[in-house]
C-alpha cells in the first residue's frame, strides 16, 4: 500500500503530464504483478464494489474520531471528499503495516456478504494501521469511488513506456470486459493475443471542435459530412455468433438494449460498427426519451415501446473478422453501405446518411437546419483518412451549431466538491415570470478559477438565507447561460429542461431587470423543443 500511496501522492502533487507518466511508468516497472493489474484496473474505471454504505462509514468514522456526527457532516463539504474527510478526522494509527495493494483489495472484496459488525471491525482495523495518505487511498477504495484525474490515455502511455509496447495495441488490450478477477497481468498485458476476448471494442476515434472556418479545410470533395447526432456514441460488435454493445465510456450496454439481439440474424459475423445510439421512431426522438434507456439496467416492455433505440452507423471497423481501420474512410463507407443495403426496414442498425454538398457555403446552410433534424450540427470527416484511436486533430471535426443562450439571474449558490471545495461553483438561475424570478436551471461550469473566487467572496457577503449547504443570494448578478437543447419537463417548476447548460459569460453590464423571461424560454421551446 505504501508504494501505491506514494504513486498516488506523486500523481496528486503535480500538474505536469510528463511527471505523471514518469511516476506511473516507474510503478509499472517496480510493483508486483498483482498490484500493477489492480492499478490498471483502478485507472480504467474498474473499481472494487463498495464494501459498506456511505452512511455506515460516516457513523463509524465519527465514532472513531470521537466527534458528533453533525460535526463530521459540517466538515465534509469544506473538505469536499468523503474519504478525505474520514482520513483527516481519525486519530493517528497505533500500528504500521505495508500489505500490498492487491491484498487490501482482496480483503475488501471478501468483505461483501459478511455481517455489518464484522465489516466495521475490519475497516477500523485497517484505519488503525495506515497513515493519513494511505487511509485516504484505502477509504476511497472502500467507498467504491476512485476517480483521481488520471486519464486512461495517460495510464496507457505510461504502461506502454514501462513494457516497451505500442500504445495503440496496448489500448486495445485494455478495452473490453476484463476485471482483475478474470485475468492476470501476464495474460492481459504480456501475452500476445489481443483478441482473446471476443467482446473487446476498438478505441473510439474522437473529434475536436472545428477551430477555424470550414472553407479552410480545402476542397469540399475531400470531405464527407454527416449529422452530428445527439445520442450516445456506441460500438456494436458481432463476433463468434454473439453481439456486444459498448458505450464510448466503455460501459458494456448489451443487456440494456435488447433491440440488437436480432442483429446477428441478418448481419454477418466478424463485424464491428461505430455509430450513435438514438431513440428512434421513423426519425430521431428527443434525447430525454433516450435518457431512461441509458440509466435503467432492466428494460420493461413499456419502456421498449416508448423509447425504441437504433444505432445510426457511420463507420465500419471490422469486416469478416479483419481490422479495417487502416483503410480510407471512403472505402470503409462503401463497405458499410453494402453491408446495410439488405438489412430489413425495421433493422436496429441504420445507415447514418451522408450529406452531399457542393460548396462550404451550401453546407453551412444545411448545418443551420440541424436542430430541426434533432442534430447538434455536423461531422466533417476526411475521405481518405484511416480510423485513428483517441482524440486526434486533422481528419475528423465537429462542426456544432452555436449554442442557444439566455440571460439569467443567479439566485442560489452551493459549494463545489473536490478541487472546487470551499468555492461556490454550483449555481441556480432564474428568469422573470411577471415580477417573480422562476428558477429554471443549474449550471456549474464555464467560469475561470478567478471568476469563481470572485463570485465566492461575493456570495459570502450577500447570503440572504441558508438552506443546509444551499445559500440564497441577492438577485444581483446576470449570467449568460448557453445550452444545446430545450425540452418540456413537467418535473421542473419552470416546465422546461435544458441540455448541457453552462455559464458562457458573466454579464456584469446587464442589470437584473434586463434578464430574459419565462416567455422567452417558451418561445425557444416552441422553435426547438
Amino acid at each position: 500500500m505504501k508504494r501505491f500511496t506514494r504513486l498516488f501522492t506523486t500523481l496528486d502533487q503535480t500538474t505536469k503530464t510528463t511527471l505523471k507518466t514518469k511516476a506511473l511508468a516507474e510503478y509499472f516497472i517496480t510493483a508486483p504483478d498483482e498490484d500493477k493489474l489492480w492499478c490498471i484496473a483502478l485507472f480504467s474505471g474498474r473499481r472494487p464494489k463498495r464494501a459498506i454504505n456511505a452512511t455506515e462509514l460516516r457513523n463509524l468514522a465519527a465514532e472513531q474520531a470521537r466527534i458528533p456526527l453533525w460535526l463530521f457532516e459540517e466538515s465534509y463539504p469544506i473538505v469536499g471528499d468523503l474519504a478525505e474527510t474520514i482520513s483527516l478526522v481519525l486519530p493517528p494509527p497505533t500500528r504500521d503495516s505495508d500489505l500490498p495493494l492487491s491484498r487490501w483489495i482482496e480483503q475488501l472484496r471478501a468483505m461483501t456478504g459478511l455481517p455489518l459488525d464484522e465489516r466495521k471491525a475490519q475497516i477500523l482495523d485497517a484505519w488503525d494501521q495506515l497513515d493519513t495518505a494511505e487511509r485516504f487511498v484505502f477509504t476511497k477504495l472502500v467507498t467504491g469511488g476512485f476517480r483521481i484525474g488520471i486519464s486512461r490515455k495517460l495510464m496507457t502511455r505510461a504502461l506502454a513506456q514501462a513494457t516497451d509496447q505500442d500504445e495503440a495495441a496496448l489500448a486495445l488490450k485494455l478495452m473490453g470486459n476484463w476485471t482483475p478477477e478474470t485475468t492476470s497481468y501476464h495474460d492481459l498485458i504480456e501475452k500476445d493475443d489481443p483478441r482473446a476476448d471476443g467482446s473487446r471494442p476498438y478505441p473510439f476515434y474522437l473529434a475536436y471542435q472545428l477551430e477555424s472556418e470550414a472553407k479552410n479545410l480545402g476542397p469540399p470533395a475531400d470531405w464527407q459530412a454527416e449529422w452530428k447526432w445527439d445520442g450516445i456514441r456506441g460500438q456494436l460488435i458481432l463476433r463468434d455468433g454473439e453481439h456486444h454493445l459498448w458505450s464510448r465510456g466503455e460501459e458494456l450496454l448489451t443487456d440494456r438494449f435488447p433491440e440488437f439481439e436480432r442483429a446477428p440474424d441478418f448481419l454477418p459475423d466478424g463485424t464491428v460498427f461505430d455509430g450513435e445510439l438514438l431513440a428512434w421512431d421513423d426519425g430521431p426522438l428527443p434525447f430525454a426519451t433516450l435518457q431512461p434507456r441509458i440509466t435503467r439496467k432492466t428494460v420493461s416492455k413499456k419502456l421498449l415501446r416508448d423509447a425504441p433505440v437504433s444505432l445510426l452507423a457511420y463507420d465500419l471497423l471490422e469486416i469478416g473478422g479483419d481490422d479495417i481501420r487502416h483503410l480510407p474512410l471512403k472505402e470503409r463507407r462503401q463497405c458499410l453501405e453494402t453491408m446495410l443495403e439488405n438489412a430489413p426496414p425495421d433493422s436496429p442498425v441504420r445507415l447514418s446518411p451522408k450529406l452531399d454538398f457542393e460548396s462550404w457555403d451550401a453546407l453551412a446552410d444545411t448545418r443551420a437546419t440541424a436542430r430541426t433534424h434533432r442534430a447538434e450540427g455536423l461531422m466533417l470527416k476526411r475521405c481518405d483518412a484511416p480510423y485513428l484511436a483517441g482524440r486526434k486533430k486533422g481528419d475528423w471535426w465537429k462542426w456544432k451549431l452555436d449554442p442557444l443562450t439566455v440571460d439569467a439571474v443567479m439566485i442560489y449558490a452551493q459549494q463545489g466538491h473536490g478541487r472546487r471545495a470551499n468555492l461556490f461553483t454550483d449555481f441556480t438561475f432564474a428568469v422573470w415570470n411577471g415580477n417573480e424570478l422562476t428558477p429554471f436551471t443549474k449550471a456549474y461550469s464555464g467560469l475561470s478559477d478567478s471568476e469563481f473566487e470572485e463570485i465566492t467572496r461575493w456570495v459570502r457577503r450577500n447570503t440572504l438565507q441558508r438552506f443546509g449547504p444551499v445559500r440564497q443570494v441577492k438577485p444581483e448578478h446576470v449570467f449568460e447561460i448557453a445550452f444545446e437543447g430545450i425540452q418540456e419537463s413537467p418535473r421542473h417548476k419552470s416546465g422546461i429542461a435544458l441540455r448541457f447548460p453552462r455559464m458562457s459569460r458573466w454579464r456584469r453590464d446587464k442589470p437584473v431587470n434586463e434578464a430574459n423571461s419565462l416567455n422567452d424560454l417558451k418561445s425557444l421551446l416552441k422553435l426547438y423543443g
Partner: protein
Amino acid sequence: MTDPVLTFTDRGIYCPAGDFYIDPWRPVDRALITHGHADHARPGHGRYLATHAALPVMRHRLGDITAEGIAYGETRQIGGANVSFHPAGHLPGSAQIRIEVDGYVWVASGDYKTTDDGFCEPYEPVRCHSFITECTFGLPVFTWEPQAKVAEEINAWWQTCVAEGKTALLGAYSLGKAQRLLSLLDPIGPILTHGAVEATNEILRTQGYALPETIHVTPDLDVKAQKGALVLAPPSALGSQWARRFRNPSTSFASGWMRIRGIRRRRGMDRGFVLSDHADWPGLQEAIKATGAETVYATHGYTEIFSKWLKEEGYDAHVLQTEFGDDGQSEEAV
C-alpha cells in the same frame, strides 16, 4: 450583574471601563493591538499600544503612528481597566490581551498557536472568565503534524530540487511564517528572499531574533549564479512576473490550508506543506480548557460550527462577528 468588560461594536472589540478598542477595524482614539498582521493592525488610529516586540514591524507597515510599547506580563491601568499582554505564539511579538475590570477577567487572544515553534515567544495560557478565541482552523479535520516532521519534508523537497537542478520557490506570508520557515531550513544552499520578506527579516534581526543569512533578490542580482537556491516569497509573488527570473522552478506553499487536497490542488503549486501559525483543532480545545473560562466567543473562522461544538461541551459559547480574516483564506490568515 455588572457591565461586561468588553462589548462588540461595529468598530471592533471595545472596553467601556478603559475606553479603548482591541484590534479595531475602523479608526478609533485608542487601539490595543495583538499583532502586526494587516487585519489586526490597521492604520488611522489615534494611539496604539502593543508589545515592544510587535512595534517595530507595525511602525514599518503603518508609517508614522503614535504608539507605545509594553512588556509581556507588565500590567498597565487604563481608566478603570487593568490590561496586560501575554505571548500568543502566533508570530514574534504577538500577544493575547488580558483585561481585568472589578475582578472580572477577559482575554482577547488575537491569533494564536499553542505549540512552541522554537522561534517566537511561546504561547502562555491565561486564566480568565471570558475568552475570545479565533477558530481559523476550528474543524476536526485540521490537526497538525509535529513541526520537525514538516521541516523534514520541506528540507527533503529542497534537496530534491537541488539534485534535479531546479529552483525551490517557497511561498509564505512575509511576516511570521516566512521567518519561522527560515528558522527551520537546513543549510542546503543559498536562501533568496523577496523584498517583502527581506524587509521584515531586517527588522526582526535588529530586534535580536536569530535568522540565517539571506540574499535579497534585487534587479541586479545574478540569480543564475545562486546554485541550489531556495527562494522565499509571499504566495502572490510566486505567480507573478517577479518569479519568472527563476529558471526551472518547483513551487510550494506553506499553510494550514494545505491540509485539504482540494485547496492544495487549486493553488496549482507543485507541493503544499501543512504548516500553520494558528492552533489546530486539538490546540484550540486545549487552549480554551486551560483558560478556565466559562464564556467563550468564537471569531475568525468556522465560528458557527465551532461555537455549536463548544456549547455541546458545556461552554456558554457565542459567535462574534469581526472583520478579521475573510471567512476563509486571506493571505493574512494562513
